[in-house]
């Protein structure tokens, strides 16, 4: 398999011209009522989280704010630029692999870090291997375990040997955690090869970046200055957008969308995503370990009601398995499970579960879980299951409650590939196998699918795995939650990419300002 880089320079040149002319037009027209950014193409972004744990280290990135910052400062070996979700080479010029286990990356020549030093294979080797060092505190240490050996081959070549074949490697490497930092920097300071240079960084307060005039993709970026701040309070975030103090915000609650749509100068962008809040039924405890219990609960969920009442019809109905309809390998053959009280009653009787009393732990930390739990409680009472909704604080939820009671809620962020989702959350040996289910057939398919070279066969395997999870796993997944951003209409070039909000956190490189 060989992947060639796109001839970006010409396209980049054209769009660069367009961008420049837009800026010129912008400069000529007079200011309108709302406050415009003071400098041409200087925008302010407000995200929902900013704290002292904000970091310049891609390996430690944990929030949308971090990912956005990292994509402005660094580049990866590969990148995902559009809704096709196909990873294309970025810092790599070409990528070769015969067996999907041994990979060869040929780097682009003449790419410079912000301090002027050239990008070489040494930087790439360092960036990939540091995830395996526990002292780095990498969020993707488990993913990086599959890097068996990473070596430099000359100044511009990198060889990567995996512990086993993985056809999704290029997608994995396009994630923000695997962005390339300078060799030898245990604590990266923002010096990357990315479209913006760091100007000011204060954890929990702000990040300011300025256009990198020597960026290696011609015509990008089009913005002069981007300031990222955190406004944790959702209402304040929306107010800041409406008053023109910030120009793009993320994580809007579906109930605030009307306010933004009512303002002619602002708009919303809904990105479908594979984010889901799931009801966990532990298989190693009773009564949740009883297969009839699991099926009874799965049939108790009124998915259209959840979509309508909690998400104002902006979510995607899910089918108790983690692959969303817009993702690769989605199995459309599995019949959609709907609210079916008769079926639920039958399972309750078969399992001898009449009159079972059980608390469901819900929390603000898992999106929508409190409301979902109430809906399930209501229908449960109609089939003889008495649930109580235990609402617990978001603070410390993941260490104290998550997976620690028979019924808790989880909240799973989008992952770029089916393999990552299944290996992190459904493999019987995975740390976050939330419901502790074990299925030998599933585990076998998971390993086989990684190395399958035939796409048709792979799709079939992932299809069967979705069926297995849908039928047997102790997780109920009611809906996939869409991510909603709000923006000032003078900000152009935004379009949803189903990897995350803010164009998969990569918007800064692509958008431009137009008065």
């Amino acid at each position, binding site marked *: 398999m060989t992947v060639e880089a796109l001839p970006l320079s010409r396209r980049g040149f054209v769009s660069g011209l367009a961008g420049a002319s837009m800026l010129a037009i912008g400069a000529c027209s007079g200011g309108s009522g709302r406050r415009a950014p003071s400098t041409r193409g200087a925008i302010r972004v407000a995200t929902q989280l900013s704290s002292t744990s904000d970091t310049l280290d891609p390996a430690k990135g944990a929030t949308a704010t971090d990912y956005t910052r990292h994509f402005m400062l660094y580049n990866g070996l590969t990148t995902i630029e559009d809704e096709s979700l196909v990873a294309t080479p970025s810092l790599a010029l070409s990528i070769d692999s015969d067996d999907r286990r041994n990979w060869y990356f040929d780097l682009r020549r003449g790419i410079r870090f912000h301090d002027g030093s050239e990008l070489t294979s040494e930087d790439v080797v360092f960036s990939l291997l540091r995830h395996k060092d526990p002292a780095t505190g990498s969020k993707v240490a488990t993913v990086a375990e599959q890097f068996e050996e990473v070596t430099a081959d000359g100044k511009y070549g990198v060889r990567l040997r995996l512990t086993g074949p993985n056809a999704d490697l290029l997608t994995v490497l396009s994630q923000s955690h695997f962005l390339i930092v300078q060799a030898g920097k245990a604590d990266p300071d923002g010096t990357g090869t990315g479209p913006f240079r760091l100007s000011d960084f*204060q954890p929990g307060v702000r990040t300011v970046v300025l256009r990198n005039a020597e960026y290696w993709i011609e015509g990008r970026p089009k913005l002069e200055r981007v300031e990222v701040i*955190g406004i944790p309070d959702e209402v304040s975030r929306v*107010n800041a957008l409406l008053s023109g103090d910030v120009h793009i915000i993320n994580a809007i609650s579906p109930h605030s969308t009307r306010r933004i749509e009512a303002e002619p100068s602002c708009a919303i962008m809904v990105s479908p995503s594979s984010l889901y809040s799931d009801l966990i039924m532990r298989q190693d405890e009773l009564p949740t370990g009883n297969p009839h219990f699991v099926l009874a609960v799965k049939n108790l969920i009124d998915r259209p009601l959840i979509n309508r009442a909690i998400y104002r019809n902006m979510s995607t109905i899910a089918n108790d398995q983690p692959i969303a309809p817009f993702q690769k390998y989605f199995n459309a053959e599995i019949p959609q499970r709907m609210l079916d009280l008769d079926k639920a009653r039958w399972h309750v009787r078969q399992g001898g579960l009449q009159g079972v009393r059980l608390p469901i732990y819900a929390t603000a930390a898992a999106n929508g879980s409190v409301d979902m739990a109430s809906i399930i409680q209501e229908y449960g009472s109609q089939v003889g299951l008495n649930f109580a909704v235990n609402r617990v604080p978001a603070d410390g939820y993941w260490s104290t409650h998550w997976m620690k009671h028979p019924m808790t809620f989880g909240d799973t962020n989008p992952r770029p590939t089916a393999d990552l989702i299944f290996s992190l959350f459904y493999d019987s040996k995975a740390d976050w196998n939330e419901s502790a289910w074990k299925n030998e057939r599933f585990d076998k398919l998971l390993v086989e699918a990684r190395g399958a070279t035939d796409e048709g066969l792979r799709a079939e395997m992932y299809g069967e795995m979705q069926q297995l999870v849908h039928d047997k796993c102790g997780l109920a997944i009611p809906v996939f939650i869409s991510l909603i951003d709000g923006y000032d209409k003078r900000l152009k070039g935004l379009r949803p990419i189903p990897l995350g909000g803010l164009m998969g956190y990569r918007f800064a490189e692509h958008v431009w300002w137009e008065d």
Partner: protein
Amino acid sequence: MAVQGENRPAWIGLTRVVIQRVLSALLTLFLVSIVIFIAASLLPGDAAQEVLGQSATPQQVAALRHEMGLDQPAITRYVDWLVAMLSGDPGRSYIADMEVSDLIGERLRNSLTLAGVTALVSSVLALTIGIVSAINRGSKLDRTLNVVTLSLVAVPEFLIATIFVLIFSVKLVWLPSIAMVSPDASWGDMLRSMALPVLCLTFVVTAQMARLTRAAVADQLDRPYVEMARLKGVPFRRIILFHVLPNAAGPVLNAMALSLSYLMGGAIIIETIFSFPGLASLMVNAVTSRDMPLLQSCAMIFCTAYLVLILIADVVAILANPRLRS
């Protein structure tokens, strides 16, 4: 007794009071640091877990714990922190991996500016309202001021703040809805961006101070000495400024000190709504991320601010009122 007091210069008694107060303040700070440390240790999870988040494996957590020194017994960590603190080093933040003093520096300045400006505006306002309504007790003006201040005390600040943002930022577009103070901003820019937070805080704080001022002044106005002074023909303005106010200073200053110390730590709601980078939100941040050195330093600053303000209030009250000097 009174004779003894008059023979001694006032400042000796005052110095003794101040020294006693400083010593007890140090003891208070020590006790507070223990309480905060114990309370924070009781919270579920630790900094290592918070850093690695939901996705951490036990091995990773153990490795990071060792890196941060969290595998040491609690007593050792506390004593280490205390010894460092006594030598003037507040330590290093677990989470941001920066010196605590660097993290606090700008935020402390922001918080002090916000509190200072608010204090200035609200004290003047509160004293005026309080005195005016005490003098005109029972009049329509007094009743109006009463209703206004009482309703302001009753309205929660998040409501006031939200309404102000809707009116001044979203509808009228006069003032920014977020108070981002950047160090390179001019004074004008800074005051403009701080206008709404100051306004909201002023509303909350003024109401309380004005109520207490009114009560204290009214109480003094009922005393026989005021009547005496009036009978002697002392001008009313003089009675208020030179007789009533010094006597009312004690309770009024205490009320002001309490309100102002609230401005340092209690401004959390305002800081959240306006994304104001102040100390209170930093402390909340430190609690949620279990960042002990940062949390302790914030707690010490708030506690010190409180103690200093109360001390200043007492000293001024003593100076203003000869009867308290002994």
